[in-house]
């Protein structure tokens, strides 16, 4: 009997041990937690581009938002205008205008010339281009950077067979061109943002470029060191096409390439600020300036000289102050001041009035020469405004004021016809 019972007891004991082991695995450790609760994360309702918070220093900038295509003197809009070039209010990528080139078996172009001293080894352009229809034959020039000495250039064109944009780089007039095509074909009636950096200060010369932010094959050619000369929009050779250009920025700082998508918008005067010695200024009706005088200098397109504000009494501290409409944009990379003037002298003179833009107490822009152009006009002058502290912000731009006057010599009498700010916004 005992020999039969012992195995059964051993089995039962083993079972008890096994059960005990299971209980041990479940309750073997003490524990405690420490926690950090309620961490919340929320994103913006929509994502536009992330603002790079950079300030671009354009050599020239325009969206033609002042509504005119003017040239001459290097101080206003373009340096020169040739052929059928207009401010187009029917087609615009941003704002209300664009620059329209409509050569028809002829040249049609505008350009800006770069300073030759100091020599500029590279330059950057950012613009948008739109072909109303795709040309049936190749287009050799839609945009061109040219070199100063050896006839080199970097030229944006169009290849009709592939319907692609092309970049043709020549390191000299006799050099073998390097031709590359865009990765994809383009479509009629569509805006494309182009970034180009042309480098010819050393060998090899290169043309780096992007289409809608997509890097394209770089054109490259060996050559001798040269310097930048001009940026040309349109065609200097006979061609037939209709192209619109918008949101143009030219920079002599190659490191600003690529700027990427952006838009150039306008701000016009919307009120009077705190003028000093206001009785020294009159409206075009001969009355002293008042709270509505800004309406004499707010016209777009700024092509009229029928209404204006003029300084009638000399005074180096006297000025008429204008405020501008506010922007709702927040990522502002550059500001450009445009204004037009004329005078009534046919003999010229040596007056010294000034137009300034103030960002707080900092004079962000000033222009003193060119008030003796004559009676034709209105003449277009412009230049870059630099913020008191970089970058431009919505509040700093919305706070700027323009001051006209300061003239201690107002013979011939200066007339301010219009003021328009253009500003570039990252997209």
């Amino acid at each position, binding site marked *: 009997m005992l020999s039969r019972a012992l195995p059964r007891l051993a089995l039962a004991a083993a079972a008890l041990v096994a059960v005990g082991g299971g209980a041990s695995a479940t309750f073997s*450790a*003490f*524990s*405690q*937690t*420490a*926690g*950090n*609760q*309620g*961490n*919340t*994360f*929320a*994103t*913006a*309702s*929509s*994502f536009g581009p*992330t603002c790079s918070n950079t300030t671009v220093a354009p050599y020239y900038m325009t969206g033609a938002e002042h509504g005119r295509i003017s040239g001459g003197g290097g101080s206003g809009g373009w340096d020169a205008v040739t052929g059928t070039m207009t401010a187009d209010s029917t087609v615009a990528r941003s704002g209300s205008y664009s620059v329209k080139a409509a050569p028809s078996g002829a040249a049609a172009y505008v350009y800006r010339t770069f300073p030759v001293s100091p020599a500029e080894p590279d330059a950057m352009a950012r613009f948008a281009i739109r072909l109303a229809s795709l040309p049936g034959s190749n287009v050799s020039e839609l945009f061109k950077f040219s070199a100063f000495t050896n006839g080199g250039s970097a030229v944006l064109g169009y290849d009709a067979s592939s319907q692609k944009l092309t970049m043709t780089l020549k390191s000299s007039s006799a050099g073998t061109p390097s031709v590359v095509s865009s990765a994809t074909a383009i479509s009629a009636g569509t805006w494309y943002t182009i970034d180009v950096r042309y480098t010819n200060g050393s060998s090899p010369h290169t043309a780096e470029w992007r289409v809608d932010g997509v890097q394209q094959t770089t054109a490259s050619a060996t050559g001798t060191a040269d310097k930048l000369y001009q940026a040309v929009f349109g065609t200097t050779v006979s061609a037939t096409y209709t192209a619109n250009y918008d949101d143009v920025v030219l920079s002599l700082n190659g490191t600003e390439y690529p700027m990427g998508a952006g838009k150039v918008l306008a701000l016009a005067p919307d009120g009077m600020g705190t003028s000093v010695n206001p009785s020294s200024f009159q409206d075009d009706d001969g009355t002293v300036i008042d709270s509505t005088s800004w309406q004499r200098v707010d016209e777009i397109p700024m092509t009229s000289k029928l209404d204006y504000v003029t300084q009638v009494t000399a005074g180096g501290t006297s000025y008429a102050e204008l405020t501008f409409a506010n922007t709702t944009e927040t990522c502002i990379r550059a500001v450009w001041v445009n204004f037009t003037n004329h005078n009534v002298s046919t003999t010229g003179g040596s007056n010294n009035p000034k137009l300034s833009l103030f960002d707080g107490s900092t004079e962000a822009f000033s222009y003193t020469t060119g008030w003796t152009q004559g009676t034709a006009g209105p003449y277009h002058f412009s230049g870059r405004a630099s913020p008191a502290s970089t970058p431009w912000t919505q509040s700093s731009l919305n706070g700027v004021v323009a001051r006209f006057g300061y003239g201690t010599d107002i013979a011939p009498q200066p007339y301010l016809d219009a003021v328009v700010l253009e500003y570039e916004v990252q997209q």
Partner: protein
Amino acid sequence: MPTHASEPRLDRKTKTALIVFLIGVIASVAGLATWSAFSSTTSNSGNQFQTGSVTLTDNDSGTAMFNMTSARPGDTVSKCITVSYTGTLTSNVRLYGAATAGNGLDSYLDLKVTRGTFSGATPANMACTDGGGSSFVADSVTYSGGNGAGASGVMFNARMNLYPTTWTAGIVDAPGGTAEAWTNPESHVYRFEVTVANDNAAANKTHTQTFTWEAQDA
């Protein structure tokens, strides 16, 4: 007539002997119940029993590390929280958490958790630097276990939705691959870096998260 076998019968002497024996037995038992034996006691008093403790705390003072609003792609926030152990038992620690609210932003939040120390005093408000010379210094140890764990004290480096949610799946505080034995007193700083992914799908989303450290005696 059937015949019955005759049964054995006890003789008189045997019966008498048996009766005497039974009386003796009964008398013995009755005697035991009636008269106790001499006795003496000894005892061991004051025996105490006490369990060990597992005590883990942090320095958040009841405040969440993060309150990120209107964030955009690339936006990053960082906080450093100090976790301290004062239990009497040696313990292991694991990290895990829980999503308590939201509509999917955790899938677009890059979370990096790094263990380290402060080069000086502990900054206030769970900041990772006090601006005066004390800043977070990552441990020069390597973690393994996936989800971006690696060198320089990085325990987790992946989207927040992959952060473990249980002790079992938790991130073992095991620098070099061996679970660290936390003893009293021991503290470590954990830097949490959260970055919004560069993905347009992350717009207009929210998420609420709890981060938990759990110690269990080893």
